[in-house]
């Protein structure tokens, strides 16, 4: 196997790695307090890498390299492309915010750590081996811990970093423990080999399921679904908003990909077991996320709980793949989950883009009340935020509706026992969610503003924000293209 080094399949990753190191060194010589050179270089790198990934993805080929350690397939390449774009957008929105808070004065760590985190996501997305996946998880996690603590003089940020670190380490521990069990039972770290071994049915089921439980717990931590959601609200609230966006955005794509690799590609024969676990997680997330979301007054905390419940919907998609041992519906289900998670990230980007836009020097627009009367101050940005909220609430014609429709459709089509009941439960929970999303719209449109100051944004921020929010509407009206893209990618991945 080792002769199949196949470096060509990994050149975007290698390019990203080289460029990140270059940028880290170039940054040493940058004097400007806004780090324009570092910023432009990072964006250029990500732009090029995203194009390369998209190019790889559209070729539709599945290539294994480094002796089956990593795989480059359309699903992975698209997810890598989208997570690159997500980090790109995050940094565009986040730079003015970070500059105003002295986060760029002493160094461009925001950019270099962001790029390293992105590299971690790449490894998570394309790992085809338990240890490689774990390596990716840790690279991402360590970069993120440091990013959360980037404002080291800020008490809430350091507290959040500590919490994130402790609970994140616990989650990684779970994951690693589960992987070691699976390794013990199957004798391999290679996902394809594990799949074949499990499929024989010769392996002790109890050991496998025990390992599986730990793996699912670990994934639960990474997704931030109930009951492993405890870190989510605190970290979202405490971290600098730009980092929150990193965690709430691109991270989810990587978590989704890793779940696909581990559960679907590796442990598909155990679907009946892990699907039940995912269902429990999703039912709990929908309930806790939406009930607790109602009580929040802090915007970032509210979005955190909303994320928990939205991830519940993603899990519904993953839950619907296999019914009665029949995998006919699998492609439909997983591609709907993929569509959901991509569109969710898109919406989250715009939400935090607005939050950061309203935050000025020395003022965090974190409370929901800070949005009061935004419509009078800036009808455009209020409109964008309203679009996001209606999208998250799943009201057509925004893209959030297309996501909910595809996930629920997959659930009902899967013919799982109780599918209709679960679908009804999910929509009733999104009714609860509608309440707190509407409250944001209410504050922006019905309340009078606390300040008369208008909102201004740099050209780059404004342009990206308009494209981003335009996509929410356009993809809601014409979701066909992205859906087909997801479906093709998943079909290829399942086919190998």
């Amino acid at each position: 196997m080792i002769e199949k080094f196949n470096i060509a399949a990994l050149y975007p990753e290698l390019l990203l790695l080289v460029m990140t190191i270059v940028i880290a060194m170039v940054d040493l010589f940058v004097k400007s307090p806004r780090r324009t050179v570092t910023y432009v270089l990072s964006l250029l790198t990500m732009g090029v890498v995203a194009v390369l990934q998209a190019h790889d993805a559209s070729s539709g080929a599945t290539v294994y390299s480094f002796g089956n350690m990593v795989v480059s397939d359309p699903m992975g390449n698209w997810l890598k492309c989208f997570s690159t774009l997500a980090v790109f957008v995050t940094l565009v929105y986040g730079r003015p915010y970070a500059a105003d808070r002295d986060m760029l004065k002493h160094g461009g760590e925001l950019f270099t750590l962001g790029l390293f985190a992105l590299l971690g996501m790449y490894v998570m997305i394309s790992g085809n081996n338990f240890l490689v996946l774990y390596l990716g998880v840790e690279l991402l996690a360590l970069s993120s811990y440091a990013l959360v603590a980037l404002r080291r003089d800020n008490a809430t940020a350091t507290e959040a970093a500590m919490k994130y670190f402790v609970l994140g380490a616990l989650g990684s521990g779970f994951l690693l423990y589960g992987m070691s069990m699976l390794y013990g039972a199957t004798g391999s770290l290679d996902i394809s080999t594990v799949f074949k071994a499990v499929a024989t049915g010769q392996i002790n089921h109890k050991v496998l399921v025990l390992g599986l439980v730990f793996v699912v717990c670990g994934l639960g931590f990474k997704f931030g679904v109930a009951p492993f959601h405890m870190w989510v609200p605190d970290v979202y609230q405490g971290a600098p908003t730009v980092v929150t966006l990193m965690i709430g955005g691109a991270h989810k794509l990587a978590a989704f990909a890793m779940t696909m690799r581990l559960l679907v590609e590796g442990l598909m024969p155990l679907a009946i077991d892990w699907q039940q676990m995912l269902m429990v997680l999703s039912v709990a997330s929908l309930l806790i996320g939406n009930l607790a979301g109602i009580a929040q007054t802090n915007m970032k905390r509210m979005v955190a709980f909303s994320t928990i419940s939205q991830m519940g919907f993603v899990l519904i998609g993953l839950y619907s793949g296999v019914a009665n041992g029949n995998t006919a519906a699998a492609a439909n289900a997983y591609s709907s989950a993929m569509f959901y998670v991509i569109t969710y990230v898109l919406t989250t980007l715009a939400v935090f883009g607005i939050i950061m836009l309203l935050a000025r020097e020395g003022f965090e627009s974190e409370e929901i009340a800070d949005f009061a009367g935004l419509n009078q101050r800036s009808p455009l940005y209020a409109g964008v935020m309203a679009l996001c909220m209606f999208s998250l609430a799943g009201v057509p014609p925004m893209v959030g509706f297309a996501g909910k429709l595809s996930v629920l459709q997959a659930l009902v089509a899967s013919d799982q026992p109780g599918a209709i009941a679960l679908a009804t439960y999910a929509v009733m929970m999104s009714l609860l969610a509608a309440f707190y999303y509407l409250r944001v719209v209410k504050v922006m449109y019905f309340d009078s503003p606390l300040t008369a100051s208008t909102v201004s944004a740099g050209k780059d921020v404004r342009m990206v924000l308009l494209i981003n929010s335009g996509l929410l509407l356009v993809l809601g009206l014409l979701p066909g293209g992205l859906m087909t893209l997801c479906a093709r990618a998943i079909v290829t991945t399942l086919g190998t």
Partner: protein
Amino acid sequence: MGLLSLAIWTPIFFGVILLALGRDEHAKVVRWIALIGSIVSLAVTLPLYSGFDVTTSALQFVENSMWIERFNVFYHLGVDGLSLWFVLLTAFITVIVVIAGWEVITERVNQYMGAFLILSGLMIGVFSAVDGMLFYVFFEATLIPMYLIIGIWGGPNKIYAAFKFFLYTLLGSLLMLVALIYLYTQSGGSFDLATWYKLPLPAHAQTLLFFAFFAAFAVKVPMWPVHTWLPDVHVEAPTGGSAVLAAIMLKLGAYGFLRFSLPIAPDAAREFAWVMIALSIVAVVYVGLVAMVQEDMKKLVAYSSVAHMGFVSLGFFIFNDIGVSGALVQMIAHGFVSAAMFLSIGVLYDRMHSREIASYGGVVNTMPKFAAFALLFAMANCGLPGTAGFVGEWMVILGAIKYNFWIGFAAASALIFGAAYTLWMVKRVYLGPVANDHVKELTDINSREFFMMALLGVAVLVMGVYPKPFTDVMDVSVAELLKHVALSKLPQ
């Protein structure tokens, strides 16, 4: 682009332009663009009527193209005798609403007018969509502009009303969403209504579907006992919002019964017809009584709307053609009359800033022209022969007597309550001596208000005297629908 697409997207196009126009310094331009936009939107719907073939129940002006390939969702539009008039009604009421808000709305005029125009396009979309998912998208999307209209320009308790409106109706429609997805999987991956009409469904599935649709549409109509959101919302909504809500949005629910519940789950519809009839009778009789004791004019008209819509749901579920046609006529008539009633209240409210019946008295002395119109609309509201209100109610009662004498009797006797609460309100508000100094200082309606009232007045009278254009359009489609409902869809 087909005529129906034009009818949907013209107002939305104008609405988006208005939203882009920005702040209130252009208020005058904004008003004129809104008026032109609404008139153009009405004009593009007129060929629908003139080109409509009344001899067929098939869909007309059909447009069909793929929308979301992965789910087989089509951008499939078409009108038949059941929906044609509502397209025109929507466009007409939008013109009236724009005129009604002309001087009254001074803040964020562009958003107000824009919201109404977009809403108008979306509602026309609901009436002309014949793909289940397309229908749902339009149906749900109407909530957004209405929520903003109530919340921004509403009365003191507007936030409560806006939330109640949104969440209450969302509750029902989310259940419908599950039903639509279920039908999609059962029909082998189609959202096409015609396919669903032919799809055999076992009895328990039909029952669940029927009640899922019931949840969506009964809330919207609203039927007793899920009507409680309506009075709260009407009281707080701005005049234009109330008019559109009563005139058209309630019809979305009733129309849904005809498009979804009856043809898709006919066996369940027949089996549970007694429930629907009972709820309708309660709405007609009990809610009529409730209306009588209201002290707030808007609340009174809101309850009267619930009672009138009770006639509509009654007409649908007695399954004879005079009943169903009557219900449809009643829907159109109520569209004119309720809009007129709310606009009359708006005229008074703009001057006195009170909706309490008790703060008025003897308005006829200071506003004679206005009082004449108000009296006409009040008469139409109690169903006086010669006005629009009479035709539909009379047909429904006739149909109900055919179905069961006592049901017809109960419905007919409810007319008395309708007359009682309306006339009593007229007496207290308009007649008698001038009650106080505020009433004394009232000025009569200006030419803008006169024009708006006159348009509605003509509509009410024409429809009352010569309802043939309305019933002609419906006849064939109603007969076809009833034929379909009479057939069992249970798998053999």
